[in-house]
């Protein structure tokens, strides 16, 4: 019975620690450009990117460095988790309009 209580306390402790939400970073797509085009995130942390496509047409958020790829329809939002990232720069682009839609994520060690 004592073991069960300890187990329960451990589960509650770890689940509350796990539910600490990752930081959210917003990136807007407007006229096939990213706003902001440079985004800073803490290194070695999972980060939630919220990409908001304000254009009418769809775009694909893609990054080889971050290993992320997602289609975002016009006037839609997309959730993309990145990280944990080593300190450095990670490029991303809009695959449908790569000449203009370019950006980077900078992971900084705090």
């Amino acid at each position: 019975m004592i073991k069960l209580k300890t187990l329960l306390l451990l589960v509650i402790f770890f689940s509350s620690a796990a539910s600490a939400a990752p930081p959210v970073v917003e990136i807007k797509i407007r006229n096939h450009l990213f706003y902001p085009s440079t985004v800073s995130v803490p290194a070695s942390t999972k980060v939630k990117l919220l990409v908001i496509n304000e254009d009418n047409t769809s775009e694909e958020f893609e990054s080889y460095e971050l290993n992320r790829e997602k289609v975002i329809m016009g006037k839609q939002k997309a959730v993309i988790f990145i990280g944990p990232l080593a300190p450095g720069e990670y490029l991303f682009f809009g695959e449908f309009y790569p000449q203009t839609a370019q950006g980077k994520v900078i992971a900084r060690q705090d």
Partner: protein
Amino acid sequence: MLLNSVIIILREVLEAAILVSVMLSLSHYFNISLSWLKWAVGLGVGFALLYADNIASISNWFEGVGQEVVNASLQYLIYLLLAGFCIQFINKPSLIPLSLQTTRWVIAISISLSMVREFSEIFIYLHVFPADSPQFTGVMTGAFLGVGIGLSIGIILYHFLNYLSDKWSFRMTIVILSFIAAGMLSQATQLLIQADWLPSQHPLWDTSAWIFERSVVGQLLYAVFGYEATPSLMQVIFYFVGLFIILFFIIKESLLNRREHQINKPNQFL
């Protein structure tokens, strides 16, 4: 815009073309009729259109990660179908318990599932540039070129695999198919990491200095072997476990077959 269109379309067509080529080559070797091809393409294109049409609402499922969950599910399913196929077909046709009908359906379904994901992205991309947009000509020209290049590579692969089967062993094609299956697992795992359904970690290695993913070689290796320049530990685990499971059963079946090679059963595929 034209070059960009070529690359986007080629990437998607290449993945489908490679799987189709492998299955065409194996069908040629095992004398399986190609009736599965029309079903594969028909279902693939049909469901891809349906998926593309509903992508906005699907993306909102599961708190915004519906796209990742659906795509990953498709790829896990393709892995299971291809793994089962590899294990069945490592031996000569006379010893395969699977019926011809079932075999054709397994091939058709695995190919159409992969086409759903790949072709839906093509449809979504082309939809961005309707006939009255200034980039339409460039995009459509690039699309035709991309399809042409992808099909050409598929045809070359088909003939190369036939050559391998004739001169060496059809088992090489089965091994290549198991790599393709493992690549599906790795991609699916990456999607679930992107969706935060699987834990994320630092990349295990970075080989982008040797083979950059965006290069032609990188894309080919990605399509056939599931090459990733910066894979996470979870992806690597899924890839190699998935590959070893297939190879283990393939070797086991091969050894069993060798011990029982005196058994004569009528060849059900002729």
